[in-house]
């Protein structure tokens, strides 16, 4: 890139530990909130998590059943397409490997669906083998509703819009189909290290 912004030096506060901040991102210490509409508030007694779609026997867990599943605490860097990254965030939740353990399916994609109508699509291989969780705890506390509580998808290696807030289930699909932001100009895959922010990136 040959263009130089006359007089711009930059604060360089953004570089962070080498190799941990993807291109075009800057570090934050707080935890910004983004969402397209009001924060849904589903009572826990009405909450469930389901796996449906291309699957012989759909699966369902109530909140109590879900909380009884083996959980993991993981520390991850997260990257939002609006340019902020946050390092070493600590989450507690259930690995998707646990949820998909007995699932027999030829599906190659999943769409996560949520209270409030939000959806996002991911390749199945991006949510298995220790790469994704349904998180219900953040920093040792229950996950705040504005950050996606009671539970959100956590897929830290992709831009954070893929980590759907207020998640209620996964639909297994044979073919990829765009979710909410993916239909509105955002990238189908969303790898922050390749800066796949928008269509065509």
């Amino acid at each position, binding site marked *: 890139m040959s263009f130089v912004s006359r007089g711009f030096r930059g*604060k360089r506060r953004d570089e962070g530990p080498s190799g941990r901040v993807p291109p075009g991102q800057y570090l934050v210490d707080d935890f910004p909130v983004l969402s397209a509409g009001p924060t849904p508030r589903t009572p826990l007694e009405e909450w469930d998590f389901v796996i449906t779609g291309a699957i012989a026997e759909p699966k369902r867990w109530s909140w109590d059943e879900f909380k009884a599943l083996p959980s993991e605490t993981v520390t991850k860097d997260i990257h939002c397409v609006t340019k902020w990254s946050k390092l070493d965030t600590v989450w507690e939740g259930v690995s998707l490997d646990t949820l998909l353990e007995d699932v027999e399916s030829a599906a190659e994609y999943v769409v996560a669906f949520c209270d409030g109508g939000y959806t996002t699509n991911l390749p199945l291989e991006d949510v298995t083998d220790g790469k994704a969780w349904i998180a219900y705890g953040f920093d040792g506390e229950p996950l705040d509703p504005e950050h996606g509580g009671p539970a959100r998808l956590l897929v830290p290696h992709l831009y954070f819009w893929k980590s759907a807030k207020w998640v209620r289930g996964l639909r297994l699909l044979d073919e990829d189909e765009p979710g909410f932001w993916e239909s509105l100009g955002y990238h189908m895959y969303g790898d922050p290290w390749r800066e796949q922010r928008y269509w065509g990136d």
Partner: protein
Amino acid sequence: MARAAVLGRLSPIAWQLGEVAELVDETARVKTLVLEVPDWPGHRAGQHVDVRLTAEDGYQAQRSYSIASAPEDERLAITVERLDDGEVSPYLAEELVVGDKLELRGPIGGYFVWEAGQGGPLLLVGGGSGIVPLVAMLRNRAASAASVPARLVYSARSPDDVIYRQELDRVAASDEELEVLYALTREQPAGWTGYARRVDEEILREVAYPSCEGIAFVCGPTRFVETVADGLVAVGYAPEQVRTERFGPTGG
């Protein structure tokens, strides 16, 4: 699959250079940059652009800014609040002069948008610099669909913090279908008859359209957006009628 394949083939939203044609001081901390962008593909009210700054040594910083201009305007305008601890906003608000070039790409975003075809009535609730995409909607409405009823509730700390004050008062006075209401939360001028507190459920109940018809757009800092979006649902708006966008002090 067909659709995914189409998306995959799209060419990227290209970075391009705009030239600063005009700078407008809106408030002590807020400036509007009017840009000449030769290859601008057009936009819808509510969308934003990504701005990228590059230092001599190649270091880059990117941020997103809401577009303030209407799709009908000849030049692209963004309105920038200078954040003291920011990296990009101080450059945009203080360093740039007319004739400088600025690298940008867009338009970005497809949900927090309004077009005349979506109709109304339109309830716009903005806090601080969250007014920017809402004013783009009002400008678009004035240019294309002035008969759509619209109501703006604009929360600012003090009269001096109100962006676009003259324009808003002027269009509100000349347009029977448009109402502009201010909530000045910290400091009000003598004789102030508008709201003198943060936007709350009671205010929203007063400004909501009968039967909560139409669409509501809410933009501002997180706390503001959470309160207003929850409040709108509490007074009867369905969640899918309420579209939100956040402006935080983060980064800048």
